[in-house]
C-alpha cells in the first residue's frame, strides 16, 4: 500500500504543478514583463512598495469576496460597503470620537452589520446572492451619498491618518500590514477552524452539507459578515490614505475583488479555493495597474488588461488545472 502511495505522490504532472502554482507564475510573469519594458522605474524598490500599498485595498476586498464566491455565490456590495463605512467612520471622527472607537464602531461593527443584512436577506428570501447584493450595492451607495451629502468628508483625525495610512519605519506601508494580518487570520480561519471547514463543505454541495448536519444559514450569514468586515477595513485604509472620505470611493472595485479571487484560482462554483492565492491575485491586479501606468498607458487599458487576464487565467486553468481531470 505504501508503495502505491509513493507512486501516486512521485508522479506529479504538469497539471498538478499548474493548479498549485499558476497564480504565483502569473505574478512573476507580470513582474518580468513590466521589468523588461520599463526596467528603471518599475524595478526600483520604491515602486515595489507602491505596488504593494496600492494592492492593499484590493486584497482586503478580495479576501471578503472570497467568502461570497466560496459559497458558490458572490458579494457585489463590497465596493459600496467600503465607501459607506469610510463615510461613517470619518463622520464619527469629525464628531469627536476617539479614532479607536470610531474604527470599532464605524468599521468593524458597521461592516459586520452591513454583511449581516446581506446574509439575512439571502437566508430569508432564498434568492441568489447575486440579486440581493446587487440590490444592497445600490442601497449602500445611496446611503453613502445621503449621509455625506454627496460631498467628501474631511477633518479626519491626523493621528489616525498617519498611523493607518503611514509606513512602519518609513518603509513598510501600514495598509499592506493590515491586509496581510487580515489574510493570515482568514487563512487560519479557513484551514484550522471547524467553521471554516464547514464553509467549504457548504460551498461544495449545500444539500449534502445540510444533511451532514451543518447549519447552513448560520454559516452563510457568517460568510457575508466576514465579507462586510473586510470591505469596511478596505474603507478604513482608503480614508486614511486619502485623508478624507469620498462618497464615490471604490466605485467598480467589486470587479477588482472578484478578479483577484478568480485569478487566485477560486472555483466560481464554490467549495474550492484558498486565501493565500487570493492575496497573490490581489497583487497581480496591483502589478498590472502599476505596470501599465509605468509603461504610460491610461487606466482604460488597465481595464482591458484585467479583463484579458481573467479570461486567460480561467481558460488556462480549464486546460491545465485541477478541473481538467473532472
Amino acid at each position, binding site marked *: 500500500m505504501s508503495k502505491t*502511495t509513493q507512486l501516486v505522490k512521485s508522479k506529479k504532472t504538469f497539471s498538478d504543478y499548474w493548479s498549485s502554482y499558476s497564480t504565483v507564475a502569473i505574478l512573476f510573469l507580470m513582474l518580468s514583463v513590466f521589468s523588461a519594458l520599463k526596467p528603471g522605474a518599475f524595478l526600483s524598490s520604491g515602486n515595489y512598495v507602491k505596488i504593494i500599498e496600492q494592492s492593499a485595498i484590493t486584497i482586503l476586498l478580495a479576501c471578503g469576496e472570497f467568502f461570497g464566491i466560496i459559497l458558490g455565490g458572490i458579494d457585489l456590495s463590497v465596493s459600496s460597503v467600503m465607501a459607506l463605512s469610510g463615510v461613517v467612520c470619518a463622520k464619527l471622527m469629525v464628531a469627536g470620537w476617539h479614532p479607536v472607537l470610531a474604527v470599532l464602531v464605524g468599521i468593524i461593527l458597521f461592516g459586520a452589520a452591513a454583511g449581516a443584512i446581506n446574509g439575512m436577506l439571502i437566508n430569508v428570501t432564498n434568492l441568489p446572492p447575486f440579486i440581493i447584493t446587487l440590490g444592497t450595492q445600490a442601497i449602500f451607495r445611496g446611503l453613502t451619498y445621503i449621509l455625506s451629502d454627496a460631498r467628501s468628508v474631511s477633518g479626519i483625525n491626523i493621528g489616525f491618518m498617519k498611523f493607518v495610512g503611514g509606513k512602519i519605519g518609513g518603509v513598510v506601508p501600514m495598509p499592506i500590514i493590515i491586509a496581510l494580518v487580515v489574510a493570515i487570520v482568514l487563512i487560519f480561519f479557513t484551514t484550522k477552524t*471547524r467553521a471554516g*471547514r464547514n464553509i467549504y463543505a457548504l460551498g461544495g*454541495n449545500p*444539500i449534502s452539507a445540510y*444533511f451532514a*448536519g451543518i*447549519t447552513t444559514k448560520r454559516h452563510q450569514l457568517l460568510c457575508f459578515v466576514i465579507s462586510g468586515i473586510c470591505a469596511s477595513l478596505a474603507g478604513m485604509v482608503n480614508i486614511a490614505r486619502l485623508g478624507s472620505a469620498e462618497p464615490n470611493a471604490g466605485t467598480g472595485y467589486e470587479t477588482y475583488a472578484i478578479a483577484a479571487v478568480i485569478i487566485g484560482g477560486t472555483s466560481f462554483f464554490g467549495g474550492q479555493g484558498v486565501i493565500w492565492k487570493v492575496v497573490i491575485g490581489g497583487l497581480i491586479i496591483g502589478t498590472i495597474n502599476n505596470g501599465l501606468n509605468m509603461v504610460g498607458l491610461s487606466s482604460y487599458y488597465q481595464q482591458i488588461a484585467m479583463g484579458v487576464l481573467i479570461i486567460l487565467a480561467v481558460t488556462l486553468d480549464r486546460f491545465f488545472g485541477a478541473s481538467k481531470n473532472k
Partner: protein
Amino acid sequence: MVRMTSLVEMRNITKKFPGVTALSGVNFDVKPGEVHILLGENGAGKSTLMKMLSGAYEPTEGVMVANGKEFPRFTPKISQDNGISIIYQELSVINEISIQENIFVGKLAEKSVLGLKVVDNKAMRKRTQEVLDEIGLKRSPETTVGSLSISEKQMVEIAKAVAFDAKVIIMDEPTSSLTTEEINHLFEIVNRLKKQGKGIVFISHKLDEVLAIGDRVTILKDGQYVGTYPISEMDEDRLVKLMVGREIKGTYLKDPDKEYKNEVIFEVNGLTRKDEYVKEISFKLKRGEILGFSGLVGAGRTELMEAIYGAAPIKAGTITLLGKTLHIKKPYDALKEGIALVTENRRETGFSPYFSIKQNLNQAKNLKESKFGGMTGLINNAEEERVSEEQRVAMQIKCATTNQVITQLSGGNQQKVILGRWMASNPKLIIFDEPTKGIDVGTKSEIYKLMRGLADKGIGVLVVSSELPELLSTCDRIIVFNDGRSNGEFLSTEATEEELVRAATTK
C-alpha cells in the same frame, strides 16, 4: 448460434493508471442481436472498460476492433462513427427542451428558406415520432422532457441512440431508479432492439435482471477478466461466486440464541408531517433490533426519516430516544442528539465532493463536538488522522491514502466513508435509506454485517429499502408504508416477499 462477426471487440485490454492497474487482460465483444451483460463489483473496472469504448480512455495494452478494423485506441469520433452509444446512469437529457430537440440536439435538421438555413421542425418531429413509436414511448415529440418520469427520460436517451442508428447501445445500470413495471417495459424495448440486430451492453448489479435479459455475461473482478459465459449456463449462485469468489450468506438476522433485553431504545408516537406526507406513524425499536421500512417510492418511508432527522417539519407526534423526548428542528439538532442519517443519494446528499476521505470521515464528529451550530472549535490534525485511520480500518475502506478525494472511490467505498463518518460521532440511532443502492454484491454483504454489528452494540438501526430480499435478510421487523401510513408490520422470519408487496400496493 451462427457465428457472426462482432460489432465491437476488445482484445486483451490492459489499462494502467499511475500506481494502479485498473484492467488486465480483458476480452470483450458485442455481436449483433445480443444482450451482453457486464458484471462486476464496483471498482471491478466496468466504467474503465466503457470509457475505452466511448473513446475517453486509451488502453495501455491490447487492440480495439470495430467492424473488423483494428485500432490501437478508440477516439470519440471512431466510437461515434461505428455507432457506439452510451446511456449513462446519470441521464444527460436537457429538461428544459422538448423530446425532439433533445434527440436532435447538436444535429438539428435544417432546411433552406429564402437562402437562409433554419431549423426544420417538421422533419425532426416526423423522425422523432417514428423513433418513439419504435420504442413504444407514448408521448408527443414536443413534450418538454422535464415533465417526463425518470423511466421516460431514459427512453428519450434510448430514442436518441436509435434515431442516429446506433449499432451498439451500452446501458450503465439502467434499472437502478426504475419501478418493477418500468423495468419490464425497458426489457421489452431491449428485446425489440435486439431483434433489430443491435448489440446491447447491459451493466447491472441485479442478478435476477441479468439472468432475465442477458444472452452472454462477461465478469470482471478487481480489474481481472474472469470470463465470458452464456447466460443459459448461469444461475444466481454461480454468478455471485464468479464475481466475488465467495458465497454470500443470505441472512444477517439477529442471533436467536443471543439474549436481548426487551428494552425500547427508540420510539415514535403519532408522528404526522406538516405536509402530511407521513400520517400518524407510531413504532418502537428494541435494543439489538433492526427495523425495516418497505413500501413504494413516495409512500412515506424516506419522508418519515427526514422528519425524524429534522429535515422536514412535523405537525404532531413525539420522538423519544433512550427515554428522552427530542425536539428536533434541523439536522444539526438530530446529530447532536445522536441520530445519523445515511441518505439515499450519496452524490447529491451524502458527502462533500471536494473533501478528502479524511475530511469526510471527521465531519460529523467535528460538528457534534462543537457548539453554536457547529461553528466553534479548531481542527485537530492529529486527532483527524487518528479518527480516519480508525474508521478506515473498521469500515475496510479501500483507498491508497485517506488524503484522496472521496470522489475517486467506488460507490461502495464512498458509502463506507459516509457510514464511518457517522460512526466517528458515536450515534445512538442510525437511519439507512437505501443503504446498498448502486453497490456491488460483495460490499453489500459487508454493509449488512456492519449494520448487524451496530445493532448488537445497542445502537438503533432503521433501514429503508426497496429491495425486499435486503429487508427480509437484514431486518428483524418490517413496517410497510402505504400512502403515508403504516399498512402492516411483519416479522422477517415469517413474512414473504408477496405479503410485503401486497401491503405496499393494496389497502
